[in-house]
């Protein structure tokens, strides 16, 4: 009475052929997929082989880091002289005032730490009260920054902005430029699309004027021409002049980036909000801008990254930003001849900041874009 029950079972999948999965397949497909690919791959491997080992040898294996003067570097010139960067770190990061007054160094350090402390939670998705945090960063933080780093209040010794330098100055100029240029730029972008002729022509003239002028010219005007219009002895800090110039310039670029977002927006959005009985500002604030800004994030961040790098132009008006102070440091008797190290360091710091901004904007885009991708 036994009946053979035949059980139909699905056999486990067989493994794909070894040359279509894993790194072997990846290499085969991506690096040696065709004749031209193979040639390009080999060429690049050759270039890497040619340049990377000597570079590593210079920058890592043979590099000097010990000691506190140039003697150790002079003896071994086959490697990079990071001793120079180590000794000059305070100057490169905070400028000459804080290098001269090491007991005051805690001020910019603390300002940077607080900045990091405010920015990090903003980058994390689950943080509550983000809006308030952002408000603190944009309104309270600048006041905190100026009173702490600038001093002159609460018994903190005064340090003029013109005596700041290095990363501190680069950061300050970029931060001020970004924070002030964004609202100005939004207003200008709205103004350019306005139906009121005066507002529209003002916006167009403003944007085209500042966009048509190189930043270097604006900085030069702010530094060289402006003092001639003021009577002798009227002091108007050079850093403030540079900040004003950068902000005016940057707002024109931001305006164009925002306008791109406004134009990409479907007309139906405006019409729908009108149908709901919203006024101009209600439409703009609740319907138009949130969508337009989301679209223009990549181009806005793009202009901000460009601005961060452009701040190094202030060296033309004698301000010691990160790049200039690195340059000047390598011109001192203590370290002349080690300019490559100085440039490498400045380049690395610039890259960290710009790459950070880029990563953050990509993250923001992905996050804000999710609802649009759901079909």
């Amino acid at each position, binding site marked *: 009475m036994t009946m053979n029950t035949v059980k139909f079972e699905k056999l486990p999948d067989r493994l794909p052929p070894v040359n279509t999965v894993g790194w072997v397949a990846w290499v085969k497909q991506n690096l040696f997929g065709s004749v031209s690919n193979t040639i390009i791959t080999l060429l690049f491997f050759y270039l890497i082989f040619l340049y990377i080992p000597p570079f590593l040898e210079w920058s890592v294996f043979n590099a000097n880091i010990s000691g506190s003067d140039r003697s150790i570097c002079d003896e071994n010139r086959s490697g990079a002289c990071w001793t120079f960067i180590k000794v000059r770190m305070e100057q490169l990061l905070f400028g*000459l*005032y804080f290098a*001269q007054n090491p007991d005051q160094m805690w001020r910019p350090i603390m300002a940077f730490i607080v900045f990091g402390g405010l920015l990090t939670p903003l980058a994390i998705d689950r943080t509550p009260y983000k809006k308030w945090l952002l408000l603190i960063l944009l309104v309270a933080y600048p006041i905190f920054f100026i009173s702490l780093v600038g001093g002159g209040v609460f018994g903190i010794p005064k340090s003029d902005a013109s005596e700041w330098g290095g990363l501190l100055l680069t950061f300050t100029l970029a931060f001020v430029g970004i924070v002030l240029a964004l609202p100005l730029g939004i207003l200008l972008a709205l103004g350019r699309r306005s139906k009121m002729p005066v507002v529209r022509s003002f916006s167009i003239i403003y944007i085209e004027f500042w966009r048509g002028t190189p930043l270097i010219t604006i900085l030069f005007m702010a530094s*060289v021409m402006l003092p001639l219009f003021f*009577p002798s002895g009227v*002091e108007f800090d050079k850093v403030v002049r540079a900040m004003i110039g950068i902000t005016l310039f940057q707002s024109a670029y931001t305006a164009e980036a925002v306008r791109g977002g406004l134009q990409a927006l479907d007309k139906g959005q405006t019409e729908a909000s009108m149908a709901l009985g919203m006024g101009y500002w209600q439409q703009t604030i609740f319907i138009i801008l949130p969508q337009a800004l989301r679209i223009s994030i990549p181009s806005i961040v793009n202009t901000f990254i460009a601005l961060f790098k452009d701040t190094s132009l202030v060296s033309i008006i004698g301000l010691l930003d990160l790049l200039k102070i690195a340059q000047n*440091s390598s*011109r001192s008797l203590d370290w002349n001849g080690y*300019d490559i190290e100085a440039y490498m360091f400045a380049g690395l710091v610039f890259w960290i900041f710009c790459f950070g901004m880029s990563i953050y904007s990509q993250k923001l885009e992905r996050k804000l874009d999710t609802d649009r991708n759901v079909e």
Partner: protein
Amino acid sequence: MKKISLLLGAFALIGFTYSSVATASTLEEVQARGELVCGVSGGVAGFSAPNDAGRMVGIDAAVCDAVAAAVLGDADAVKYVPLTAAERFTALSAGEVDVLSRNTTHTLTRDATLGVNFTYYNFIDGQGFMVAKADGLSSVMDLDGASICVQAGTTTELNMADYFRNKGLDYTPVGYSTSTATREGLEGGACDAITSDASQLAALRSETADPSAWTMLPEIISKEPLGPVVRQGDDQWMDIVTWTLHAMINAEELGIDSSNVDAMRADSPNPSVARIVGSEGETGPSLGLSQDWAYQVIKQVGNYGEVYEKHVEPLGIARAGSVNDLWTRGGIIYSPPLR
């Protein structure tokens, strides 16, 4: 209406600051401020560049220190303002700096048209040429047909063009945007020679991998007397800066330096020395300064030779017998008597 009155108020305020400033002389201003504001380059080795402690040092920065010592009695009471070549004269005439000590060449056009006064010279420079020792060249005349690295767009380039045309020599200029790049060009073999101011060449040579492989040709084809500059219209201030330099030169001539000035002050039979250190005469009060102004300069900054030795010798610019030596030793550094 409200805006207009605000604007007027702002103008009135500016006018007020202006009138209060206009009446004060530079000396009074500096003394009231307790600090000398001095324009420097901030990035030329030996002239002014930040040291490890973040302080500007160099032969130009030393002029600022000396003036501060003379006027305020404290060589540290200086605020250095780094200036680019393009903005230096504006910064001076707009009152942003009290003294401009930024390796600035004295020329007629600058003196006559820019509203500034040149005081005296703290370094006498001139354009020269540097070549590889191995090439065995001994004169600029040997450079016929050579390619020469030069910083493009500078007077250096024009001076060279004039000189070579005048001598009927052929050459190919190889332009670079920075002096560092010209040095790299020379080292990389892009040219046979490099031209710049002699002090600059010495600094560039010290930056090369093997400084002993390069040599300077004897010809100096331009005159570049460098020195501090002040605003026009304040003769007292100009005198103070000029005589601060003179005091340093006189001190060297008389053998007074920062280490022996105290001993000299206590007891010196030489009346010239006594006048400098302030134990005799009225030099300080005549300038509107304290009696011991020159003593403070020498004590805190040093005499001209000390400053030169400290900041310029390390670049490899020998002083003995050069134009920058004292007139008593074959140079042209000379000072009127301090009496």
